[in-house]
């Protein structure tokens, strides 16, 4: 079962990489053409090369790393806290009908609050330091993880759960040996959604009240008319978000290796 896949892995892998890169390369070319024909002024659409120059400039004076590092730190801490809480509450709601009846409707209502609506309250309560930003990222990561974990555990294969019971597993051991492994794929898709939403909420947090980070770089460059830096910040957000997702995907593949 595994040997043919192994033998041909490099072939399709290479083809997939080429296919995935085709569109970005095409967009880059179109960008270059549009910028150089003068259809847009360089203030509206600077050519790719000047974005690269901006990268060199920011990297050179070290500010780029500060922005990237603080944004990454906020996402990592916020995601860890939000997904951890989402997992814990999701497990409680998924396993206990009583907790579900008590908690699920309120959580669903909270979930409907748009992310930006939290910002003024968080600033009021937590000041303008790291607290409110990390909290906002945590809120963003919480809901996808909570939703997928609670739904998956509530619908864990009843046949397998019964086997676990019939063979003497109860409580924690039933959860750890049967239920969690059986819902692991769903948990991972929840974590990936949560991570993506964490980045989304990070930018929301940094756009409004911060003096550092990629979101701040967006507003700052808009205010100073540096469209090249603005585009650079967008590209960095795309690259970092993708990199985080790939990392989590690698963990997922390793954990779920035995599920197929």
């Amino acid at each position: 079962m595994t040997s043919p896949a192994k033998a041909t892995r490099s072939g399709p892998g290479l083809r997939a990489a080429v296919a995935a890169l085709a569109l970005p390369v095409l967009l880059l070319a179109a960008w270059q053409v549009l910028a150089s024909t003068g259809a847009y002024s360089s203030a509206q659409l600077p050519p790719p090369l000047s974005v690269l120059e901006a990268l060199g400039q920011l990297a050179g004076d070290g500010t780029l790393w500060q922005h990237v590092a603080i944004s990454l730190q906020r996402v990592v801490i916020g995601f860890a806290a939000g997904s951890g809480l989402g997992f814990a509450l999701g497990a409680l709601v998924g396993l206990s009908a009583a907790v579900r009846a008590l908690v699920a409707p309120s959580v669903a209502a909270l979930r409907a609050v748009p992310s930006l609506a939290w910002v003024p309250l968080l600033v009021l309560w937590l000041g303008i330091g790291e607290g409110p930003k990390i909290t906002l990222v945590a809120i963003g990561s919480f809901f996808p993880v909570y939703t997928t974990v609670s739904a998956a555990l509530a619908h864990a294969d009843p046949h397998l759960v019964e086997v676990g019971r019939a063979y003497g597993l109860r409580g924690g051991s039933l959860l750890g040996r049967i239920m969690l492994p059986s819902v692991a794929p769903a948990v991972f898709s929840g974590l990936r959604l949560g991570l993506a939403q964490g980045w989304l909420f990070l930018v929301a947090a940094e756009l409004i009240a911060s003096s550092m980070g990629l979101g701040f770089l967006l507003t700052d460059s808009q205010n100073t008319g540096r469209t090249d830096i603005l585009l650079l910040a967008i590209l960095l957000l795309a690259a970092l978000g993708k990199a985080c997702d790939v990392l989590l995907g690698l963990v997922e593949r390793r954990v779920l290796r035995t599920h197929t």
Partner: protein
Amino acid sequence: MVIRTSVVGSAGIAPAGVSLRGVRRAFGEHVVLQGIDLEISPGEVVALLGASGCGKSTLLRLVGGLDTATAGTVRVDGHDVAGIDPRCAVVFQEPRLLPWRTLAGNVALGLPRDLPRADRDAEGRRWLAEVELDGFARHRPRQVSGGMAQRTALARALARRPGVLLLDEPFAALDALTRLRMQDLVEDVQRRSGTTVLLVTHDVDEALKLADRIVLLAAPPDGGPTGVAAVLDVPGDRPRDHHQPELAELRSDLLARLGVPRRAAPRERENDAP
């Protein structure tokens, strides 16, 4: 063969008796079973025969502690069944293997919890050998056939060293040839281990082949919930062939009681089949 005899022979399986008195099971208003009285001696093989949906699986689940009777007593080995019973092991109609574990890992679910980790794998392999799956310990459930998966489920049940082996239509989803092989295997394992077997089935021939006694479950003619319609001893020693002439009469009797009367004895019927 030497290994096989040693595993089951030295397994320390102590066959347990089962006793049901006035058992009733209702789901809300709906009464499924009523007035079930049944005594099963240690080491006996009893088939619960009945049409589908008659409540025979429910009865099996009551013995295994997967379900609780609304009224009456269920006893295994003289003790009331309360919750999952460690003296019982169930094989379900589906293999219900954990897809993320190897076959040996699945069998290990039936092993005692206090067994050292190092011994679990070896024990798992031994029980797999018991169901003729030597060499498949590291396979995943998805990599083996339905019959092999069901044999793994049987090994998992045996690893529990059950006093009562509860089989809930374990051959129903298998193809005809695999089913025959599984029946032989169960018969063989039962003979060597001496465990009590409670087999739920809707297959008259399967019951005739494997059981010492057949308990026919059906609703009384005037309607109402399922009860014990008849308890019939199966003549002849096991292993037996359900085509044996002395079984023919019992076979037509059972089929008639199940509502599908045959005009003639099985051998003649087969000859005049179109």
